[in-house]
Each structure stands twice: as C-alpha cells, then as structure tokens.
C-alpha cells in the first residue's frame, strides 16, 4: 500500500429508489448524509471534510455542489466537489484521509430524475459540432459498445441474457420492496429492443437516488474502536480517450490500468479466488461481461465456461445487490457498487449479505461506454498496527 495513512469505510447509506417527490434535493441529501453518519455512530461534528459528486445537467443547476453546502454539513467545513463521476468523490475522500491531514470524510453523491429528458441532458456531453447531432448518450453509447462486443464475441448476446436474469433475481432478494422488475427469463429475452442489442428488461429505468459513505483514518478507527470497517486495500482509476471513435469499444484498457493499480496495491494475483464477492458495474449486461475480462476474472474465451462461477453461492458471487440492472440512479450507480461492496465486508448488507466476506471487489464505471473506470479492493483485515 502506497498510502501515508490507512483508511476504511465505517458507515454507508444508499437511498434508492427515492419515490413520491415530496422531499426537496436538500432534504434528500440531508437524510442520506445523516443515515451514513448514524451508521458510523458519528455526527457532523466528527467530520473533517466532505467530498461530493453531482452532475449539473441532471441537477438542472450550474455548480450543483452548491445546493449541498448546508444539507451535508458543509457550512464552516472543508468541502470539495467532483462532477466527473459519483465514484470519484470516494477517490477524493480516500486520498484526503490517506494524506494524514484528515481523520474523517463524508462522501455523498446523488442523481435526480426531475430533468425533462435524461437522454437529452446526457447528450449535451457531446461536442457541439461533430457528435451532438447524433443520438449519443450513456444508453446509446453503451449499446454501441454492446454491439461491438457482440460483433467480436457473438455468444455475448446469450451471456448478456443470463447476466441480466441473474442480476434481476439477485435484486429481487436484495430489495424485495423496491426491485419489482421482471426476473423471468422469457420476459427479458422477449422484451423490446430499446437500443440494439440492449433490451428493455436488461436495464432498469432511471430512478432518483443518493449514496453516502463515511471514511475514517486508521488512528480514528482505533481511537473510536470501530469494529465494522471495510479497509481500503487497493484503489485504481483511469479514463478512456475523449472520443468514442478513438476507442476500440470491444476492449477496456482504462479498466485494465485501474485494475492493475488496485490489485498491485492490494497484493491480488489471482482475483477469481482472492475475492469473496464482487460488485461489478452493469450499465448493461454487456458492460458487465466486458468488465469480467478487464477485472481479470476471466478472459472472453472462458466467459461461457465461467459465468456460472458468478452466481450466488458460486466461486465469486457477483452483484448480489442486483446491480444497476435492478436499481439505476444514473450518476451514482458507481458509488452504489462501492457502498454495496463495503456493506458486504462490514456485514451490513442485510438481505444480500454473503457469509464470511473478508475481501470484496468493487468496480465502478461512468460516462459514455464506460469512459471512467474505478476499481476498489476492500478488506476486513485492518493494518497490522490495528489488528
């Protein structure tokens, strides 16, 4: 581990889907921040710094962090904001605690659905001259990647159906009260194609959601005697090229870069057996499939052979939370994956808790066709000085 101070997750809260429309954004952020602090047994007074992530286009506000100032306890405190990805707030928070200059960080990301058209809002991410006329958004770019992948590996269509089915079944167990989407094989395979080859039932409709995590330093954790900690073991993040046309969408080189760094820091050499659970970004099942290779879990030549390993009870259960296939707060799905992995390590994953989780993998991807890639390894074993 290269870090000057060790850090761990000591609290989390995921509020998604948020329905009813009766709470303002500030109330939503206040509630999720308070829930994460309560989970950690802390109050705002214990927080040294805050890192938030939000998207101006989805929020309908310029400098969307501004609205969070009061509701996440930012007044009089040190708050930084990243709009590039929800998971980047986690990266920032870890870096700040790892610097030894902060004892605690509150991480918050959110994604509302009030905007008239989410695809139109996301389409603004294209340059105005060459690409904005195209119907390019997160959904269509993911479909382009899916089509490219299926062109290279035709069995990807069949495998994508099985991944969607597994995630839907996992989601029905994890969130029986809210994940009410179809978990029947026929319903998925026969649902209409929205962006070829992605079918309607392979993805979940966007929902409003908010995620918060509390990160603390080793010394703070030791002093407060926290016993439910997901320790950071390794972290990598990287970006693909700016334009889709400059990329081979059947590969994920930025994910490989992020994975190499995270695994090197964590000392992971055999990922398939090193992790007890994994939360893998699943914008569509095709992206999850590609991530298996990028994360070093199995090469595309072995996808069919190994896909059963990722079932509940298998060699490496993947997305026991159901993933974004079941609950999709667009901008903070990446941070949700990290929160879900941390919950598994901390033993707080409720309905989807796996037994004896000592090490978990979280993969977050954001932007057009997984432009931003983040890999986080979390573990139950603290640093030696703490153990």
């Amino acid at each position: 581990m290269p870090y000057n101070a060790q850090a761990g997750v000591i609290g989390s809260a995921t509020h998604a889907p948020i329905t009813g429309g009766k709470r303002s954004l500030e109330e939503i952020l206040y509630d999720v921040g308070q829930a994460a602090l309560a989970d950690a047994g802390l109050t705002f007074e214990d927080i040294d710094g805050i890192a938030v992530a939000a998207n101006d286009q989805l929020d309908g506000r310029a400098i969307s962090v501004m609205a969070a100032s009061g509701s996440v306890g930012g007044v009089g405190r040190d708050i930084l904001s990243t709009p590039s990805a929800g998971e980047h707030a986690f990266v920032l928070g870890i870096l700040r605690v790892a610097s030894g200059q902060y004892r605690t960080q509150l991480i918050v990301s959110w994604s509302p659905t009030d905007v008239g058209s989410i695809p139109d809002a996301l389409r603004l991410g294209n340059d105005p001259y060459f690409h904005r006329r195209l119907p390019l958004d997160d959904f269509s770019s993911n479909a382009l990647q899916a089509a490219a992948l299926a062109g290279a590996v035709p069995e990807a269509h069949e495998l994508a159906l099985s991944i969607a089915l597994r995630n839907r079944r996992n989601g029905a167990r994890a969130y029986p009260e809210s994940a009410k989407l179809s978990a029947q094989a026929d319903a998925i395979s026969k649902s209409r194609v929205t962006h070829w080859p992605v079918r309607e039932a392979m993805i979940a409709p966007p929902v409003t959601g908010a995620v918060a995590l509390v990160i603390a330093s080793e010394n703070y954790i030791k002093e407060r005697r926290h016993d439910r900690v997901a320790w950071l073991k390794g972290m990598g993040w990287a970006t693909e090229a700016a334009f889709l046309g400059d990329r081979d969408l059947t590969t994920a080189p930025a994910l490989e870069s992020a994975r190499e760094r995270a695994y090197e820091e964590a000392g992971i050499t055999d990922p398939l057996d090193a992790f007890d659970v994994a939360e893998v970004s699943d914008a569509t099942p095709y992206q999850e499939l590609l991530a298996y290779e990028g994360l070093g879990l199995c090469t595309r030549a072995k996808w069919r052979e190994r896909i059963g390993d990722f079932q509940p009870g298998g060699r490496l259960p993947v997305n026991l939370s159901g993933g974004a296939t079941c609950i999709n707060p667009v901008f903070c799905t990446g941070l949700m994956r990290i929160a879900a992995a941390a919950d598994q390590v901390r033993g707080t994953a409720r309905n989807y808790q796996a037994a004896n989780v000592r090490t978990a993998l979280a993969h977050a991807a954001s932007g057009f066709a997984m432009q931003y890639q983040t890999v986080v390894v979390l573990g139950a074993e603290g640093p030696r000085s703490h153990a």
Partner: protein
Amino acid sequence: MKTPRIGIIGIGQSAFKPRRDDANYPDLVREAVRLCMQDAKLDFDDIEAVVYSLSPDAMVGIGNAERLGIDAVGARNKRFLRINTGGSTGISSVAAAYYHIASGACDVVLTAGADKVGECGDSQTVLNKIWDPTYERPLPLGTISMLAMSAVRYMHKYGMTEIDMARVVVKNREHAALNPNAHLCKRTSIDEVMGSRYISWPIKLFDCCPQSSGGCAMVLASERYIRERNLDAVWITGVGHCSETYYIGDRMGTGYTADHADAFALGNSFKRAYRMAGITEPQKSVHVAELYAPFSNTEFHAIEGAGLAGLGESPAQTAEGRFSIGGAIPVNPSGGTLCTNAIAVTAMVRVAEAALQVSGRAGGHQVKGARVGIANGNGGDHQFFGTMVVEA
C-alpha cells in the same frame, strides 16, 4: 504525522484575451499544458495522474466537458478526475492534485484547465443558474448583483466609499500593465472608474472583471521526486478550504449564520492554511498575495479574510499604498482576477502567480524579495473558499 512536502515544478498559462477564435476548447487546454510541460521539462510519460479544472459545464456549453479535454491533458488510461467548486475550482484542483501526492498515491500530478468565458454568450445568464430554481433564481441574481449586496453591507458596516473601490481598480490595472498575460492591462484613473456606468450599484463597469479566454496548468511533485532529480520547486506549505451557506438570505437580516460583509469562511480557510504553514502573524510573514477578487469591493474582503488587515481597515490601507507593488504586502501584483477572469482556471492562476513571485520568476510585476506568498479562490455564491500558502 509529519506532513510530506509537495512542490510546484511547472507552470503554464495563456496570454488571456476576450476571445480565442484561433483555438477551440481542447486547444486552449493543450496550450496551457504545453507551456507547463516545457516549464517542468517533463514528458507525458512522467505524469501519473491528472486533475482537471473546470467550473460550470454551461460556461463552455458542453456537459462533462472535461471528457473533451482528456487527450489535451494526456490522460488516456491514466488516473483522472475533475474538480468543480465554481470560481474556486482552480485552487481546489491544485489542492486535489496536492492530495494525490500527499496520500502517497502519486509522485507527479498535472492539473490543468481552460475557459472561454468571453465566448459563452452571457456569463451572468449562466451564473444565474447556480441558484435554487424555486427560491432565489427568479430574482435578478448574478454574481455581480450578489456581490453588490455584499458591497452595500460592507459600506454600511465599515464606511467604504465608491472611491475606495475605484482605488482598487486603479492599483490592479497599474499592476496588470506590467503583466503580459493580463486581459485588461490598460492603466486607468479614479475619474475614469467613477465615470463608468453602473452595472449593479455600487459596482460600476470598471469595478468588474472581464470575461476572459485562456488556460492554466501546473505540475506538482513529491519532495522525494524533486530531490532525486535536483529540481527547482516552490513548496506548498498550507492548504485550506471552507464553505458558507448556499442561500444568500442566510447571510442577511436577523439571525443570519454569517455576515455577508465579512466572508467568515474565507477567514477560516486562511486560518487552516496558515496553521498548516506555521504562520501565526500573516502581516509579518506574507510577502505577496494573489487574492481572488472579481469585483473591486471583494478585494477588501479578501485582504481582511487573509488577515493582512483588520476588518474594515483595508480601504484606508489600500489608499496608503500598502497593497501596491512597492508597498508592504503587494496584493494582486499580476492585476488579479479584476483584470483577468477565465473562471475555470482563475483561482489556479492565483496559485501560479504566487508561485512565480516567490521563485523570482514573475518578470515585470515581480515583488522584490518575495519568499512567502498566499493565494485564494472563491466559488459558488461567495460560498467556497480555497486558500494556499507557497514558499520558495
């Protein structure tokens, strides 16, 4: 724990202009990066991570516009994220780059960005969208009217006059005339400032910053990396951030959480940076200051928030020349934000200029003997305050 030392080893900034029709947005970012990499004498392979500095997307008219700059900053397959804290984005980005290194994750980090404020149509229309859509956005709020209210409060509380404000403009334009990168670099007079039209009373046209286009980039490195290669560096010895309320109304009337005249969060942010740098008496320790002040009246907030003068004392001390080049503590020798404002990187330029000053590389606007400099950035609705101490 001993705080690891982190140094600035490269700086690049554009010659800021009202328009840059010759360069598209990524070109402008690349221009600053190229200058910075030349200054640092590094190749892109040496850069381990990039922090991208960009404030509201709407200013460049592209959602998540940092994605378009990925190749311009050489970030492909590298660690990359963007910071946005409004006007303070630039200094927040330097701080984020600092944490990349202070954490031990990286040894060499590039932070870069650019803006085309002069080409966005109307920045105040964009900036009205920073407020809550229900309560404050329907008001004619822009950053000018917002800070005009702050000026009125400061006038009421401390007796500032419009001539006091004009003195800041004259001083900063005098400084900018010495800086080839400044956007507004024509000298002016109190009469000319006072004769300019009102934009939002008491702020007149000449009390306002311009809308600038240009970029800025910096390379930061760990002390180990700097020592091993025997590089010249300016050390970042203090870093602070602090935030105020979102709603302007919470800074006014009875029961306010903070007085709109005093920028308490800026003061707190500087206190944090000074504490980290071991500075207890800034008026004695600081040799030069690059303080974010897009309107003449806000320079008084900044000077007092930085502890370079007591509350309400800075107008008189400005009149005495204390903050001019040649004075005790020159403030904004580059001409400051009042003369150049490419919002996404303005606060980074403050750090860059302070670093150039303490390394004796500021050229025509060099403050003699400067060894300790400070910088800050203000973002949101005078809400986010980033501060930094740099030393030779």
